[in-house]
C-alpha cells in the first residue's frame, strides 16, 4: 500500500466504497479485495460486493426508474452535460487515478478526454433519438397510431475489461440517456477509477439510484444479476470474458433482454435504441367534417 507520498506528511488514503442509491456504502458483507497498481503492487482495498449489495443496488435502480424516465428529455440531457463539465474539472485527479492503475500519462489523458466527449455526445442525444425512432403509422382505419421508444427499465451492466473508465462511461451513457437506470459491475482488476467517477456522478445533479456501481468479482455477481426478476435487461461489453450461454440461460427467468454492446459503433443513437422498447398507441379520430358520410 502507498504509505507516504512525501517525507514530511502522512498522506490520507482514500477508501473506495460502493455507489448505491446516491450513497457510498461499504459492502454489507464486510469483504474486500486488494487492487494492484500497474506494476502489481497493492494499491488499495476495494469492496468485494455480495449478492445482497447487488439486491440493494437493483432496488435503488428500480426506485429511481420512475423519476428518471419521467423527467423531460431536455433535463436528462442537461444532467449528462453536467457530468461532462464536472469530469472536465476533475481531469487531473481522474488522470492520476488512471495512472495509478497502470496507464501512461498520455493514455490516461486520452481516456478521460474520450469519456468527456462520450458524455457530451450522449447529452445531445437525450432529446433527439426519439425523433429518429418514432413513427406515425398510417393504419387503415379511423385511428391515430404512433410508436415511440421507451426505456426498458433497470439495466444490469457488465462493463469493459479494457479502458475501464471509458468502457464504463460508454455503457452507462447508452443506458441512462434513454431513461433507463442501471447497476454496473465495474471491472474487477481496475475498479478504482469507477468509484472515483461515482463521485463525479454524485456531484452532477444525477438523481441517486440512476447509476449504481459495484466493485468485486463479476463471475460471482453476474448469475445473481442475470437471475434477478426485477432486472429488465443486461448489457455486456464485448471485451468481458463471460460465458454467454450460462448468462443467457439464467436471464430467461424473466425473459431479460441480453445485449452485447456494439463498440465499433459506440457514438450512435442505435446504442440507445438497443435498450428501448417500442410502444404503440392507438386512438380513434373523430372524422365527421371531412366525409360527413356516416354522420
Amino acid at each position, binding site marked *: 500500500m502507498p504509505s507516504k507520498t512525501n517525507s514530511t506528511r502522512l498522506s490520507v488514503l482514500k477508501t473506495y466504497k460502493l455507489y448505491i442509491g446516491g450513497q457510498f456504502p461499504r459492502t454489507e458483507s464486510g469483504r474486500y479485495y486488494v487492487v494492484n497498481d500497474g506494476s502489481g503492487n497493492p494499491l488499495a482495498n476495494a469492496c468485494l460486493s455480495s449478492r445482497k449489495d447487488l439486491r440493494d443496488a437493483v432496488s435503488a435502480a428500480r426506485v429511481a426508474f420512475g423519476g428518471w424516465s419521467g423527467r423531460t428529455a431536455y433535463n436528462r440531457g442537461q444532467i449528462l452535460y453536467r457530468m461532462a463539465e464536472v469530469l472536465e474539472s476533475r481531469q487531473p485527479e481522474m488522470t492520476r487515478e488512471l495512472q495509478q492503475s497502470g496507464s501512461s500519462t498520455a493514455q490516461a489523458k486520452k481516456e478521460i478526454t474520450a469519456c468527456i466527449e462520450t458524455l457530451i455526445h450522449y447529452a445531445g442525444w437525450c432529446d433527439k433519438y426519439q425523433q429518429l425512432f418514432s413513427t406515425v403509422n398510417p393504419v387503415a382505419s379511423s385511428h391515430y*397510431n404512433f410508436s415511440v421508444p421507451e426505456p426498458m427499465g433497470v439495466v444490469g451492466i457488465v462493463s469493459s475489461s479494457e479502458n475501464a473508465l471509458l468502457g464504463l462511461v460508454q455503457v452507462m451513457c447508452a443506458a441512462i440517456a434513454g431513461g433507463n437506470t442501471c447497476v454496473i459491475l465495474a471491472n474487477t482488476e481496475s475498479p478504482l477509477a469507477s468509484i472515483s467517477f461515482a463521485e463525479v456522478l454524485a456531484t452532477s445533479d444525477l438523481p441517486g439510484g440512476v447509476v449504481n456501481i459495484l466493485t468485486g468479482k463479476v463471475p460471482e455477481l453476474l448469475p445473481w444479476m442475470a437471475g434477478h426478476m426485477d432486472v429488465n435487461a443486461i448489457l455486456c461489453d464485448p471485451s468481458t470474458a463471460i460465458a454467454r450461454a450460462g448468462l443467457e440461460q439464467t436471464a430467461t427467468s424473466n425473459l431479460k433482454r441480453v445485449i452485447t454492446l456494439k463498440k465499433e459503433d459506440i457514438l450512435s443513437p*442505435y446504442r440507445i435504441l438497443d435498450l428501448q422498447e417500442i410502444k404503440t398507441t*392507438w386512438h380513434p379520430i373523430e372524422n365527421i367534417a371531412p366525409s360527413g358520410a356516416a354522420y
Partner: protein
Amino acid sequence: MAKKTKPLRFDTDWKYDPAPESASAAKINEQYDLFMDGRWQKPLSGKYFETINPANEKTLSRVADASEKDVDRAVRSARQAYEKVWKKMAPAERGKYIFRIARMMQEKARELAIIETLEGGKPIRESRDFDVPTAAQHFFYYAGWADKLNYAFPNKKTAPLGVAAQIIPWNFPLLMAAWKIAPALATGNTVVLKPAETTSLTALKLAEIIQEADLPPGVVNIITGAGKTGAAMVNHPDVNKIAFTGSTEVGKIIQRSIAGTNKRSTLELGGKAANIVFEDAAIDQAVEGVVNGIFFNQGHVCCAGSRLYLQESIAKEFIQKLKDRVATLIVGDPMDKNTDIGAINSKNQLDTILKYIQIGKKEGSAIYQPACSLPKKGFWCPPTLFTDVAQSNRIVQEEIFGPVLAILTFRTDDEVIEKANNTPYGLSAGVWTDKGSRIFNMTRRLRAGVVWANTFNKFDAASPFGGYKESGFGREGGLHGLTPYLEIL
C-alpha cells in the same frame, strides 16, 4: 338504476335463423405432405396426424408429421434458396413476388376464411372480415418495403440474417403466418414455417398460393408437426433466426435452448392486459371495446383485455351494461354468419379454461354466464364474467386464453396504474377516458407494447406489435417489424 326497473329482455320473439356459410366453397385435400423446396414432399417419418373441426370433432384432413430429418431437409432447402437465389435477387423483384402473394390471397379470401373457421373454430365473420384481409394486408405492406430498406434506418446499411425458423400458434393461423413470412421475405431472408398442430390447413393453403405465385423453390418452406418438430427447428444449427408466437412458457424454453448461440430471436408471448375504464369515458363504446377485448376470437388472443378495471363510481352501471351486451352475443356454429363466439380451439384449451372458471368460483368471485344452448359435439365455453374479484386472485394473475373476464374496481389514476402494471406481462393495455391529458399520462405509464386508448384489439400491418417484460421481445408490423429480420450495419 331506478328501483323496480326490469332489466332489458334480449330473449326476443324475433330470432335469427341459421345463416351458414357453405363449406363446399373451400377445397380441403384428404392428406397434406410437407411443402419444401417448392414441392410437396412426403415426410421421411412416413407419419401423418389428423386435424379436426373443433365445432363438431369431425376429421378435416391428415397432415404430415415432420421429423428432425424433415426439418433438416426444410432448412437445407431454405439455406440453398437463400444463398443461390433470394439474397442475390434485386430487392424490387423480391417485392413483386410478395405483392403477388398478397393479391392471390385476396382472390382466394373466401376459401381461406372458410378453412380458417372450419379448423380453428373462430366465427366466419371474424375470419372473413379480419383474419384473411389483415393477412393479405401484411403481405401487401411488407412487399413495398423490399426495395426501400435503405430508407428505413438513417445512416445505416442492412443485411438479411439468413434462414428464419418460424413457429406460430393456433389462434390466428393464417394471420400469424403472414406476420412472420411477409417481413422475413421483404428483408431478404428465407423461411421454414411451422403452424400449430391443431391449425395447419390455412398455412398449407398459403403454401399452395406460394407455389402458384411461382416463388423460387425453397424461399418459403411450410412443414407441419407438433412441439417436437418445433424443437428441431429451434435447435437446427443452420438456422439464423427464430421467430415464435405462443406461450411464455415455451418462449422461455426456446430462449434457453438458443442461449450462447448466435441465433437471433423474436418472441411474441402471453399477456394479461388491463382494460381501464374511467367514469368520464364514452361508456357504451367502452362496453363494446371491453366485449371485443375479451370475447374476440373466443378470448384466444394474447393481447386480450382479460382484466377489466372499472372506476368505482360507474362499476355497477357498467357491469349491468356489460351483462346486457353479453346477453346478445351468439355462441355456436362458427360457420354461421351470425355467430359471435365460436368453438374453443381444442379439448386441451377447453380444459384449461374450465379449470380457471372453477378456480374463479373457488376463489369466491361471482360468476355470470348468459343463458345459451351449446352444441353437444365440439368444444364450447359461454362468455364468462367474474365480479367481486381481487388483484391476488389467480384469474387476475394468470393468462386463461379464453372468454373469461375478471372485473375489478379502482378509485384513482395512481392506483389503477399500479394494479395494471402489477403483472409479469406487458403486451397490451387499454384505457377509456374522455380527458386527453389523462390519456397521455396513462398511455405513457402503462408498461405495455401496445396501448389502446378509447379502442381495443385493433391491428394493422403498419402498426408495430409486441411486448414488454415476459410478453416477449421484438416487434411485428410497421417499420419496427423490419428490425428483427435485419443486421443493421
